[in-house]
């Protein structure tokens, strides 16, 4: 696959942004408009040079995501009733069960998807949001990379919700074994959705703005 070199609209030495040229770019299709245009003429979506309410929405969704993540860990995710006993397991409890049964790989997948990724995401989004107003350790390139990773990986947390859905549908064997979903499944699904919305609310152009030298 050959690579086409983009032709920079600024000088060769320094890239220039649409905003510094008094233009507004569409964040969906890339079309450039005169400053003050409110709607993209190519794709018809609303446009703004920088999303002014971006940070507010990021923090609001992030907070909501963290709040519902608490009951997701405290309450049971799965309720199992077999011939001999009943069992309620939380997210972490389920991971421990899998580990004790010797399914290390699957235990690791569930642990990463339901604990490491959500908590990592909370921290990463907070770090990115803070980095827009303040000077932080990572430069714009690294923070943009982090943003891409967060956007890509966040959806995968939903895996545990699907596992619960499949198990509850599958294991309905009368008195032998029955699996039902617990309330934590709902709050966990909400937590994943809220943090996805939080990441989507972050306008990545803000990450690069601080990087730019004053014009």
């Amino acid at each position, binding site marked *: *696959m*050959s*690579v*086409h*070199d*983009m*032709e*920079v*609209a*600024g*000088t060769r030495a*320094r*890239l*220039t*942004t*649409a*905003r510094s*040229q*008094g*233009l507004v*770019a569409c*964040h*969906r*299709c*890339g*079309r*450039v*408009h*005169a400053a003050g245009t409110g709607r993209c003429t*190519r*794709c018809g*979506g609303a446009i703004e040079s920088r999303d002014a309410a971006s940070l507010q929405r990021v923090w609001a969704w992030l907070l909501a995501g963290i709040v519902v993540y608490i009951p997701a860990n405290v309450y049971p995710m799965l309720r199992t009733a077999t011939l001999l006993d009943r069992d309620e397991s939380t997210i972490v409890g389920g991971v421990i069960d899998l580990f004790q*049964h010797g399914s290390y790989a*699957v235990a690791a997948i*569930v642990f990463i998807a339901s604990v490491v990724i959500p908590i990592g995401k909370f921290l990463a989004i907070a770090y990115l949001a803070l980095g827009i107003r303040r000077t932080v350790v990572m430069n714009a*390139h690294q923070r*943009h990379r982090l943003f891409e990773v967060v*956007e890509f990986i966040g*959806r*995968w947390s*939903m*895996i545990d*919700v*699907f596992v619960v*859905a499949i*198990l*509850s*549908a*599958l294991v*309905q*064997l009368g008195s032998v*074994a029955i699996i039902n*979903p617990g309330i934590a499944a*709902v709050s966990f*699904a909400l937590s994943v*959705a809220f943090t*996805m919305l939080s990441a989507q609310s972050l306008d*990545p152009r803000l*990450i*690069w703005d601080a990087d730019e030298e004053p014009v």
Partner: protein
Amino acid sequence: MSDVATGMQDTAEVTAAGRALIACPQCDTLYFEPEIREEQTASCLRCGRVLAAPRTNAYLRTLSLSLTAVILMIGAVFFPFIELEAAGLRNRTSVLDAILAFSSGLMLPLSLAVALLIVLIPLTRLAAIVYTIYPLARRRRPFAHAATAFRLAEGLRPWSMAEIFIFGVSVALVKVAGLASVSFGPAFWAFAGLVVVMVLQDNSMCRYTIWKSLEQERA
């Protein structure tokens, strides 16, 4: 930076030299619109985001892959995808059953979410993409509101989670393996195929080309 600034205010997207501009949607870096050939890829010099990647026969490829995906989806939803047997009891589950498993009480919102994420949103996206691309492939005028449909398809992209569901199935299998003997049904393979087809379909689309031709054909 003043190379392009002169006299641009009134003509907006066209430079003094008469060349159209495009900005990177992720980092706002300004470029001249690429004169790009098929099978080439243009990415942003600053953040690396792919700006344009036209492919030969892209519209036809996208269309056929979308239709393939719809057919596979129908099979994946209605056929059983897992069979379970324990102590003489047998249970076959289709994706539809997995969705309906939550259809009572507090769990209703969850069952709606699962239905949306693995069936309804992927289907909506496929329909919107076919609606957008079909006239373009035949070199006709786009259907009414094609831009809105394609915006919808792009907006729903992160919420289409069929590929995550497949991994969920594998984890669920390991969890019940000790409890009963399980086997894959035809829908599992349909679903696995669907995931591959949807990745191919996604890669065959060049957003830049589609937006450009929507704009040109409309004018």
